[in-house]
């Protein structure tokens, strides 16, 4: 079980994330939602061990991840929000590089890269440099890099960014199946329909504070609403969408 206990991160004494707590059991997919700048990425960085919390801790099976951070990272697959890859490497070389650094055995690594590239339609482009890849292709490379060592915990930060419809569909189903296999999954996204379909639980943040956290159906029940989009607007949105739209149209005519 992955547990965040009172996670707080302050920048120059201002809290970006304040007292966030949740638990994800094996097989659960936690949808992590919130408007831009609410602290989602900061939480993800703390969950992945990239950022040390000012207060609170992250526990895996009851043990603080900082006790054996390298061991924790070995069990973690992470798709970051920003697809910052090395443009001069080919897709194959990049995956080989990451696999070697993860300590994967050579023959297993080669087989897995080959298979994954085929399945995600990147095999014909495996020897082209990443600089020539589209945004979606880069995103698929990141997905392979996260999945190829069969990690126990998966953290996806906007994983559908740039993916085409087919790849997005495959990915959605994949997340559900990985959850069913007992993986611990954190899924950050702005695409609420997908979160509604693939996540078992949802946590909504507003200005760094948790405003809703429970199973998807329970959160909707609490808000008395039927769709996650309305529920999100109810809990997390800071501005009324209709009013903002009217203001933008007004500004266009100034």
């Amino acid at each position: 079980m992955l547990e965040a206990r009172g996670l707080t991160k302050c920048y120059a004494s201002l809290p970006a994330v304040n007292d966030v707590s949740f638990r994800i059991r094996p097989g659960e997919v936690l949808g992590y939602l919130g408007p831009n700048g609410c602290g989602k990425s900061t939480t993800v960085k703390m969950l992945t061990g990239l950022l040390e919390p000012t207060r609170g801790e992250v526990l895996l099976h009851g043990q603080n991840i900082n006790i054996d951070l390298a061991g924790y990272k070995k069990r973690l697959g992470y798709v970051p929000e920003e697809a910052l890859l090395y443009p001069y490497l080919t897709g194959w070389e990049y995956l080989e590089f990451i696999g070697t650094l993860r300590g994967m055995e050579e023959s297993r690594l080669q087989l897995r890269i080959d298979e994954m590239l085929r399945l995600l339609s990147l095999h014909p482009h495996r020897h082209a440099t990443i600089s020539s890849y589209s945004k979606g292709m880069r995103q698929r490379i990141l997905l392979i890099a996260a999945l190829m060592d069969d990690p126990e915990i998966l953290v996806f930060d906007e994983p559908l960014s740039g993916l085409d419809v087919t790849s997005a569909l495959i990915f959605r189903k994949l997340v559900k199946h990985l959850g069913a296999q007992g993986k611990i999954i954190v899924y950050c996204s702005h695409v609420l329909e997908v979160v509604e379909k693939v996540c078992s639980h949802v946590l909504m943040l507003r200005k760094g504070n948790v405003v809703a956290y429970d199973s998807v159906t329970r959160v909707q029940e609490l808000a008395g609403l039927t769709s996650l989009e309305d529920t999100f607007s109810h809990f997390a949105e800071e501005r009324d969408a209709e009013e903002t739209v009217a203001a933008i149209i007004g500004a266009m005519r100034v």
Partner: protein
Amino acid sequence: MLHAVRQFTDARRKRLLRSPFWRLVAHFVARVFENGSDDSGEDELDLGVGALLALLAVPGLFVTILLLDKYSSLLRMMRGGPAFDPYTAALPDQYFYVAFSMAITGLVAVVKWQSIFPDRRDYTNLAPLPLPTRNIFMANLIAVLAIAVLFAVDINVASSLLFPFFVHLELPVWALFIRFAAVHALSVILASLFAFFGLFALTGLLMTVLPRAVFRAVSLYVRVAVIVYLIGLLVTASTVPHLLTAAHPPPLWVRLLPPVWFLGLARSLIGRSDGIFVPYAWIAIKAFAGVCLAALVLYALSYRRHFALVPEAVEKGSREGLLRRWLPVRRLQGLFLRGPFQRAFYPFILTTLFRSDKHSLFFGAFFGLGVVLTSQRIASGMNHQHAGSALSLNGDLLSAPMLLIYCMILGLRFAFEVPADLRANWIHRMLVDTGKHEAAVVARKVILSAVLPVILLVAMPMYIRAWGWQVGLTQALVMVSAAWFLAEYLLVKFRKIPFTCSYPHWSEHTIFSVLLCVLGMLVFSTVPTAMGQWMLESPLRFLLLPPIIFAAYKWLAHLREENEYASGLIFEDQPEPALELLNLSRN
């Protein structure tokens, strides 16, 4: 046999690279040779490892081959030259090699400044992996050491082999040759490493002391200053050796030059210190040890500060430009910029030039060269002055600013050809009418607005102060006319928005371009000021100026007309094919 050795080394290399640590070291070495900072890949001059190393080794080879003329006993005998002590004659060349190796290594380190330290991209890719932070630190450190040694050896390999051979053409004693070769290689390689680690320590110091945002802002200016310093160091090769061999002790500024210390080391080790070089040799050893130690300590501190805390870095700090903040300048722009094209692209060009690293460095290198050449010419002009007398009107002093102006114009013109980010071109393609544009006009305005302050605010007041109003105004008029003419001439065929075209066409005929530039500098830096001086001798001669300007204007207009058939804006500059097919078989 060769095949077996190759197989063995390949197998060893593969086995080594299977270890995560050595794979990481290989990665950090490779990223220095690649364009890791740019995602598009298409707009960078990507040389690759082999080509870059060859390019760095070639100047040393060239310079050394030119020295054969000096040391060849046969050639000297045929010319009937005097008796010759090769070790005494070698001193200026030894100094040059030390300065040269420091300058080239330093320039490489400046260009590769950002890929030497792990950056945000490395953090995003490496930090989530199961790697202890100290492994990333150690791997990067080992990679930096390997790169420093590789560059130092590569830059000096040709001179280390050929130069000692040439020096000993007249002294064919193996023991002496081997000693000289070993000492020469040691001194130039240590000088290279000194330059590399000196810059490495400087970067580390800035990263440790300055806040992240300030470091980013300052980094560029420091690099430009370092380029100017390195060019200056190279230029000292023509004057410093004579000061070292003079009867009286050299001035303080000479003793502070690092190439002098390493020359001292070389001369002491070959037993030709002549008593004066031993102290410099000790300084070289101490300075080298100090720089290595400082680099290591500062690297460790900066690593902790900048790499380990990448995710804590809050992206802030206004990038509001100086021009935007300085409203009077913005208002002035309205006076000389006509139409939306000029009003949009003039600030765009200036902002790109001063904010894009590669463009700033490119222009900075030309500006630095201009500063160094100008200072040298001023020094030469001052040498002709008689002590205590008033400053006489001499050609060197009058023409000195023209060197800076020439380098600035040329630097800007070439910088316009270097693409910024081609992926951003879609907006220009979408909004600009490619058939009706003012690319050359706006480029000329940028050039003139860069050089006019140098002429009107620096050169003219100095001339007026030294030689009076008449000389000041005449020379300023001549300089402005010459700058305008050169800018116009260089932009006759220009039909690109600066920084947006994919292919710099001058790279197709680089040698010819370089020769033309040198010739142009000789003419530009002497003829206009000499003409100004000539006109001052008799005021009637001023009557010639309007017809000359008019003739130049008409000639440029004629050139522009000739090129009108290809006036549409371009975003991809394809070189003309070396061989064209007639396609006679086509129906």
